């Protein structure tokens, strides 16, 4: 006569099946497990694990700090300026920019020779302006100069 049993009494019994399955698995992959354990030991010694643990445990705090720092006015300005430079760099044809930078480098290298040529009078400037490359370059510089104040004027 099997009467109803309502609960389960916990009696310490060896979970033989589970244990033997785990032992089998460990034996099969002993080599791999050894390598992983070594890796863990090195990571622990170097502090990486501690760092990751801390990062995971304090994930919310860490993110908050990053956001806090990132949203300071000074940092925001920095980010925006970086992004503006990014916009500039992503729009300009790299071939033109390369030529410009090479010329600039070349000109800097020749700066001592320019000094020897003496002062630059209006006549010399005038004759230099006849060079189409110089003219185009100046136009770019003038256009850039306008750019600093154009927005205010437009408004």
């Amino acid at each position, binding site marked *: 006569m099997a009467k109803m049993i309502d609960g389960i009494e916990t009696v310490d019994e060896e*979970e033989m099946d589970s244990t033997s399955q785990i032992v089998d698995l460990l034996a099969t992959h002993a080599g791999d497990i050894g390598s992983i354990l070594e890796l863990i030991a090195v990571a622990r010694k170097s502090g990486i694990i501690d760092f990751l643990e801390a990062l995971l445990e304090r994930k919310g705090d860490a993110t908050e700090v990053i956001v806090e720092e990132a949203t300071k006015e000074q940092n925001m300005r920095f980010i925006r300026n970086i992004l503006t430079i990014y916009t500039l760099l992503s729009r300009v044809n790299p071939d033109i920019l390369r030529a410009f930078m090479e010329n600039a480098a070349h000109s800097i290298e020749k700066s001592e020779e320019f000094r020897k040529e003496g002062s630059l009078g209006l006549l010399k400037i005038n004759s230099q302006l006849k060079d189409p490359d110089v003219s185009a370059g100046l136009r770019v510089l003038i256009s850039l100069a306008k750019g600093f104040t154009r927005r205010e004027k437009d408004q």
Partner: protein
Amino acid sequence: MANGREITALEGQTVLQAFLSNGIDIPHICYQPNLGPIKTCDTCLVDVNGKIVRSCSTQAESGSSVDYQSPRIRSLQVEATQRILHNHDLYCTVCDNNNGDCALHNTVHDLDISVQKYPFEPKPYPVDDTNPFYVYDPNQCILCGRCVEACQDVQVNETLSIDWSRDRPRVIWDNDVPINDSSCVSCGHCVTVCPVNALMEKTMIGRAGFLTGIEKRTKDRMIDAVKAVEPELTMSPVMAISNVESRLRKSRIKKTKTVCTYCGVGCSFEMWTVGREILKVQPVPESPANGISTCIKGKFGWDFVNSGERLTSPLIREEGRFRKASWNEALDLVAEKLRLIKEKYGGDSIEFIASSKGTNEEAFLVQKMARQVFGTNNVDNSSRFCQAPATTGLWRTVGYGGDAGSIMDIYNADLVIAVGTNTAESHPVLATRVKRAHKLDGQKLIVSDIRKHEMARRADIFIHPNPGTDLVWLSAVTKYIIDQGWEDEDFIASRVNGFSEYRKSLETFTLDFAQEITGIPKETLVKVAETIHQSRNMVILWAMGVTQHQMGSDTSTAISNLLLVTGNYGRRGTGAYPLRGHNNVQGASDFGAMNAYLPGYQPVTDAEVRRRFEKAWGCKLPDKPGFDNNTCLEGVKDGKIKAMYVIGEELLETGSDSNFIQEQLENLEFLVVEDLFLSETAKFADVVLPASASLEKEGTFVNTERRIQRIYRVMEPLQGTKPDWEIIQDVANRLGAGWNYSHPSEIMDEAASLSPIFAGVRYEKLEGFNSQQWPVNPDGTDSPFLYEKEFHFPDGKARFYPLKYTPPLSLNQEFDLHLNNGRLMEHFHEGNETYKSPGIREKVPGTFLEVSPELAKERGLETGDKVRVISKWGSVKVTVLVSDRVTGRELYMPMNSSGESAINRLTSRYMDPAAHTPAYKELPVRIEKLPGKRGESPLPRTNPRNATPKPQVGVQVEKKWARKDYEKLTTE
């Protein structure tokens, strides 16, 4: 032609559908295949023959020229998307919907939108998180209307709409009440189809992404920071980062196809998990039975899998307690005890009960163990408690014990007759197809039931027969049809035997007789007959309201007779559809867990069949049917059954007359139970073996359409549990069976090799969302629809089956009320799984007794009063709910209760003489009001039954177009 390329379209396809099927993606956000064109988003604009149109709603026509990608068209698509972005805050990297399937994210990316033209502007509404399962965030809502379309016209619960009249429109529930106070049934359709994160499962929030779980304040500041730099940054790099994060989620989130275990509809879906944590259930358009549809249980009712109440160790009864034991000790004990009982009393002294929730492969192994190892046919499953009479009725008349066609045939019928089925609650997803066809396509609906449930309220004709008298009105209507000369003479002459004898048997079923017995006016019966006569294609659905009577088999037969008389078999949109209740009640029977049939419905009495199995299994098989799982209890009482092996069945509470069953369980010499939990049945066991859940194993199920579908392992078995098929094999092998199955597919291969109806069933053919509907030919072709050419009898002809009427148990002076019982949508059976879901428990915390307003008045009862319900066989204490769903002296009690208020503490041992199914629905009772303070309503205020839906067709996009702020982009 499309921008120089030729596109082929199928008849009836729209331009968008044709393009998509040709592998060309036109941007689209509000279009979803199961919903059809909604026309709210305007992102799918194309130029067809010089006119700008929405490709989702423009029919593809031969010779048309379509421009879908010129700069002009692209700019219109971009403009439409920009307008949507005004309503949606883009923060994809920290959005739980950034899983590669966000329609808006993908459209922004595909159209290469880098700068927002109309900045996001928050809507002045708070987030609604009142529903226990999902959240609506108006600020993220893009007003695409998918959710409304799904609620109004797919699920047809008719709760959601968009209030287009507001300055800032939004989705509202009913007449703009909080979600939890609305008529929302938490089916999840709206959440499933939401293309963004406006509607989201609570289980997803903060869990899907790597960064989505961070604290809200920090997240908001992060979003603000990104937004602040967006003018310089543009959206492109942000989108790129979110795309990378989305890709990384693929290694975090596992998506596994599985099949629901809550009813016989067989809804399949992907389950998204992180480890054992369930993120969400996501049905997909290719789900064959359900498409995008689910019900509350399938979408949100899986908490039981990770319940702390799961058994994780075998238990052995010892000195009046359960002791935890190792698997080896428990299995050795089971094998030894069963061996001794077989030796002492013979194999026929043991009963095996397979689970109707287990897989086909497990059912196959249970019956194989019973027959091969123990030499007995004492094996069965719970179809005995529900569907066996329907199967009997179909065997008598058409040959196969299964639905004649598919759910699409029900959807496509001109007339649906639903007899004794509370479809909207017991088979909610299948009901949606009827509700939709009835609402939108002019399908007629006749409902016969003793309770005015949702389908009854929707019906064109609702008839309320006296309990247990359906056979009479069905036969009377059939007779009337024949008397009018409306029978299908050609069909009967060419495809059915026995008409004249059958016609003669109907003589007693006059309209007068029917009116007297059923209480249905003659005029109504004539109207039913006329409606049938006027309909081209008719299906009949039925369930427990028919089968759980002493006349269950005969009433099922009467249904099939009516279909034969009217020629409603063998054409699409016709036929008989007994709606199976468990996920695999069909399959457990199909695969031989039946006392009289080997797998594939091959009789144990057929010597040729037995020889085939004996050869394969190397044993001698018994030639007489064994005990079924109902009459075996009388077998215990008579001393014939000494041991039982019960797999996943709550026999004590789902069998009829729990008090009697309890006595028999106590009388057993040995009882083994495999289960997820310490069920009420398991409490009487000598050994309890902890089984894995369906999500933890592989196998197949058969749904009500005879559709075989695979389940895949969503998560590893809970530590300490094993899948049933492994447990059965372990027991069988300890008794010398020598089985060596390493995967369920090998079991299926064996079943297919021995059963002609499964000849071509192969796991490879069932990959992913593929399915096969039996009978499956050796070449793999299957049978979505039966009887097109012949019925399943040797001469290929159906058979009329004459019937007589036997009255049900009647009321008397002592037991003056009729008690009906059944399911509620929110719960499955006694609720041992569904009560583990806090949300479901909140919506329906327990059972109750529905009492009609007139009876309540007569007895001085009000909602919240406690009563004792007493039958000849037992009594229960329960809370009253006064409801107009029941009338007069008829009561209703949902079966979602265990222990002292379980319905089967009241039911009897009366049964159908042919199928042995208990007459659960024939239950005379009386009620006694209990003293004490009146309590709360047993249906909480937030239960959807207390609210009023707001029906309309679709999202009513015309109201959007009529708004002053809507600028038309089309040139139609």
